[in-house]
């Protein structure tokens, strides 16, 4: 019997399956829930630039083919940057996993229904843009199975996870430069400006 889980439960499920992989989180509730589930240096929390989480993840995946890059997007955010699916589709970054938390509403802004509430199908959109590995997860078991599948194969992959909205219980650090430097340090790209120079 399928049960739609909350975004926080889904985030916990995903984080439990990770092993040091970088995660890029879309602003607002996806980022808040990632922090609540597990704050780790490999989390890149965005505080703005709605729509661009999948693009940031793509750039990171291209620059670091040795890492499997996870993106936690919202369906409202992805709908703002659907062209990103086309770019991911043709660049075929094998190490990119785009997870879309689809609660069918703009949860961060008061629960206005999104296009997916009216039938828009983001997994079908991803397939039509050339992303072959797509799935829709409607409960925790399906989400875990989808994550296991993408781990065992080459991407790019898109997992649309149907979730229920839940009130966030925490917020990530507000200092954007701190988030960036901690993240870059954790994945082995320490910014030169943080090193100092010995003459």
């Amino acid at each position, binding site marked *: 019997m399928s049960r739609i889980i909350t975004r926080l439960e889904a985030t916990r499920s995903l984080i439990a399956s990770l092993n040091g992989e970088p995660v890029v989180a879309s602003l607002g509730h996806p980022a808040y829930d990632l922090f609540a589930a597990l704050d780790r240096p490999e989390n890149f929390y965005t505080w703005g*630039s709605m729509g661009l989480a*999948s693009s*940031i993840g793509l750039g*990171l995946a291209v620059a670091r083919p040795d890492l499997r890059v996870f993106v936690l997007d919202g369906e409202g955010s992805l709908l703002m940057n659907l062209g990103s699916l086309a770019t991911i589709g043709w660049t075929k970054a094998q190490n990119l996993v785009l997870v879309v938390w689809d609660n069918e509403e703009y949860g961060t802004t008061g629960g206005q229904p999104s296009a997916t509430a009216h039938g828009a199908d983001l997994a079908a959109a991803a397939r039509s843009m050339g992303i072959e590995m797509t799935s829709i997860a409607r409960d925790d078991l399906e989400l875990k199975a989808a994550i296991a599948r993408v781990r065992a194969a080459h991407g790019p992959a898109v997992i649309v996870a149907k979730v229920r909205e839940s009130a966030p219980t925490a917020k990530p650090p507000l200092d954007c430069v701190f988030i960036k430097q901690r993240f*870059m340090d954790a994945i082995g*790209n320490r910014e030169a400006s943080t090193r100092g120079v010995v003459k």
Partner: protein
Amino acid sequence: MTTSSTSVHTPAWAAGVCAGLSAVGIQHVVYVPDNPLSHVLRELDARYTDIKAILATREEEAFGIAAGLYLGGARPAVLLQSSGLGNSLNALASLLLPYQIPVLMIISMRGDATEWNAAQVPMGRTVPIVLDALGIRYLVSSSETKASVESLGATAFGTRTPAACLLPRMLTTTTPAAATEGS
């Protein structure tokens, strides 16, 4: 160095831009196409095979990809037409600037001197004002494009900020036909 397989001559300004990008250590250019920039893209493809070009669907998306490339340890540039700056403001203001993510911007101008399309003029006129308002350093490069790109690259990656090289139409559209027909 290889010789371009096409018969199209690369203008000096475009060769200078490419040489500047290479001197800065740019590894990826993310772009939305533009007629003058096609010279840069062709020259990169022919002579700078260590610089990878990534096509984006929209300029805002290009800045997102560039930000990710930087997080991954690369030095990115974004190539765009000035009209695309209007599509990019929120990416610049709420991602690149607050996170101090450096990206070298090469902006092919519309709406400046020799413009024939009235629809291009308001955004083109706004470009320097918007960059000033955001506190983004820029140079209008009217001749020495290699030096301009190099100095802006030093600013961008040395001080961790976006910086923009503006290429005016007087530089990039040299023939009467090009100056009066769709660029």
